[in-house]
Structures are given as structure tokens and as C-alpha cells.
């Protein structure tokens, strides 16, 4: 088959088998963005989570696609994985102690859900976050 290759700047061997030396190589598919967007979610005062603290993104690809997601708070945007400590600092719980803000994603063949909760106690005051996502055509 014909192959399309584009070397990185400074590289000279178009026949190299070190594929990392290429910016593009048609034998190795690249990520292609199918869906993208952003949305504001929030946790209301006293809650660990509520109806507004998760958002469902319809992708309708019929399979489970590769995706990337991030959550922004106070001008800082953190990566989101399956579930875990967001590393967002400085949010207090209802007892005045710093709470852990946990972020999560759930993916199925039609939807990507992105959500957040405070653990173990509710937040002292309403907190809003911006979530952003890139969903690929490419299948996991």
C-alpha cells in the first residue's frame, strides 16, 4: 500500500522505522475529534453531589470511543480520568475543613458522563466548575 509520511523537523530519514521520528505516518492512525464541548456543573451548598454536579454528553457512536476530559476551577484546568482526587485545592466542607473534590467519567456506547462530588462531606458553599471534553472517532 502507498504510505504517507511526514518527518519531524530535523529528521532526515524518511525510511526510518522509528515511528516517533514522524509527525504523521499513515500506517499509524491519529486521533480524530468527533465531539467536543464544555459545560458548567456545580455542587450546591451542603451537598456532596446533586442533579447539577454531573453532565451527560451524547456521542451516539455505537461504540466506546477514546476521549479526554478536564475540569476547571479558579482558572486552573485539571485532567479527569475514570475516578479519583481531582487535586483541586482550597474548597471547604460544611465543617470548615478542606474537602476532597473527586471527579469521574463513565463511558458507554452512546454517552460520556462527567461528574464531580465532594468527599466525605458536603461543600460549605456552592461551587461551580467548567468541564471540557474531546471525544474521538477512534475506538478504545
Amino acid at each position: 500500500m502507498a504510505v504517507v509520511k511526514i518527518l519531524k523537523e530535523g529528521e532526515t530519514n524518511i525510511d526510518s522505522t522509528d515511528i516517533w521520528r514522524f509527525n504523521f505516518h499513515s500506517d499509524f492512525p491519529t486521533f480524530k475529534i468527533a465531539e467536543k464541548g464544555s459545560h458548567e456543573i456545580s455542587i450546591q451548598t451542603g451537598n456532596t453531589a446533586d442533579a447539577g454536579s454531573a453532565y451527560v454528553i451524547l456521542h451516539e457512536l455505537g461504540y466506546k470511543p477514546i476521549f479526554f476530559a478536564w475540569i476547571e476551577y479558579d482558572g486552573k484546568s485539571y485532567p479527569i480520568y475514570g475516578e479519583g482526587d481531582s487535586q483541586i485545592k482550597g474548597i471547604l466542607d460544611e465543617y470548615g475543613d478542606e474537602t476532597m473534590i473527586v471527579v469521574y467519567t463513565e463511558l458507554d456506547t452512546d454517552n460520556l458522563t462527567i461528574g464531580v462530588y465532594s468527599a466525605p462531606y458536603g461543600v460549605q458553599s456552592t461551587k461551580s466548575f467548567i468541564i471540557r471534553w474531546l471525544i474521538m472517532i477512534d475506538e478504545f
Partner: protein
Amino acid sequence: MNFNMAVLLIAKKTKDALSGVEKDLAFSSNRSCMIEMFSDNIELTTNGDGNGTLEITHNLGYVPAFFMFEKGYLDTLYWYPQYAMQVYATTTKLIVKANCLDANTTYNIFYSISGNRQDDAEGSGNNNVSGRLRISKSGYDAETEMDVRNMRFISGKNVPKIDEDLSGSVTETINSDYPYPTLITIPHNLGYVPVCFVFDSDLGKILPYTVPLYGGASMIHHVDDTNLYIEARSGENPESETFKYIILRDKIA
């Protein structure tokens, strides 16, 4: 999608570019790529309190898509997806912080910062398009556009390269005994440490996945220059899980 324009479609090996099945394509000018603007493998050394900060300036003027891998906290031999470090992006920088990790210790960090915004929105004001093969987003002129946010592909920058022969899936029964996880080893034999992503297809969770407070499941992957490893522990009972993994030819180290 504008089908009145000429399109460039490149099929995956053994697939038909004209089949109409987009996931069979290695490349499509109808879709935006993730365009890597900056990447590097750098060190972060903590102070006597286990704290340290790296500031990586990108100056894009917006919050870019990014991902990060780290080595040295959970294990000194393997690269993990960002886990122990705090990392966040602002409109000008990527900030990596060690907060109360091991004192006076050097950790390795690999980062990849895209030209894409995190929502792939368009914009103006930058002059950062390079390369001779340029494909713009709809409504922009590929010959004159200068802001990478308005481009679907530029040949002057790297795009991720998936090795479909090395990527695949594996099904295993996952141990529930704390703290002993099930370890799955997947050879890649590339001779360098590749970027890779892992997804638990049964739970719908991309790794790492750690339920922090309820003694629940914990799953993370790590990689070296020979193998990809998936380290997983289920919740209360052993569970059969199918993991799908994507191995890129792009290099962490």
C-alpha cells in the same frame, strides 16, 4: 461537515477509505486532529518538605488540551499516568506540583500540550501554524490561517500515532484482596517507553480509577520500554474485567 470541499481520507491498513465508516480511517480532513505543540521529558526535584513546582510556559493564551505521565513516586522504574502529582493548565502555563511527596527526591515528568483548546473551540491572535501540508477548519483559509486553533491538521507539528497491532484488549478476573492487586503484563517490545491509555470496558472507566474513600476498586496502568502493565484490584468481590489499551508510537522516554 462540508462535503462540497475536496477531502483527504486515508484508510487504516486493510480498510477501505471510501467505506463510509469513519473509525476505519487513519486520517480524515473532515475531522480535527489533536495537534501537539509542546512535549518534553523533564525533572521535578522536591525540597526537604517533599514539595516542588514546575512551571512550563506555553503562552497560547487559552487553556490547551494536555496529558501527563510521571515516574518516581509509585515506582521508580515505571511511568504512570498523572497520579501523585498535581497538574493543571492555565492560559499561559502548565503547572506541575509535588505536594508532600518524598523529600529531596527527583521525579520524572512527561507532558504533551496540544494546540487544541480543551473544547477544540476556534480563536484568533496566535501565529503558530507550521508545515507545508495544512488543512483548516471549515470557514478558514488553509493558505493564510495563522492560528492553530483554526486548523484540523498541520504537518509542522506532531499528531498521536496509534499502533493498532500493539493495541488490543485483555480480560482477566481481578483480585479483591487488599492490598494485592492483579497484575496484567502486555508486551510491546518497542525498546522505549510509549504513550499509552487504558480503559476498563466493563466499568466504562478510563484508568487511573481509584474510588478514594469507600475501599472500592483501584486500577492504574504503568509502562516501561518492554511492557504495559495493568494493576487492578476490584471492590468487595473478584470481578472479571475487560481492559482495552491503546499504545502509541509516540515516545515518553
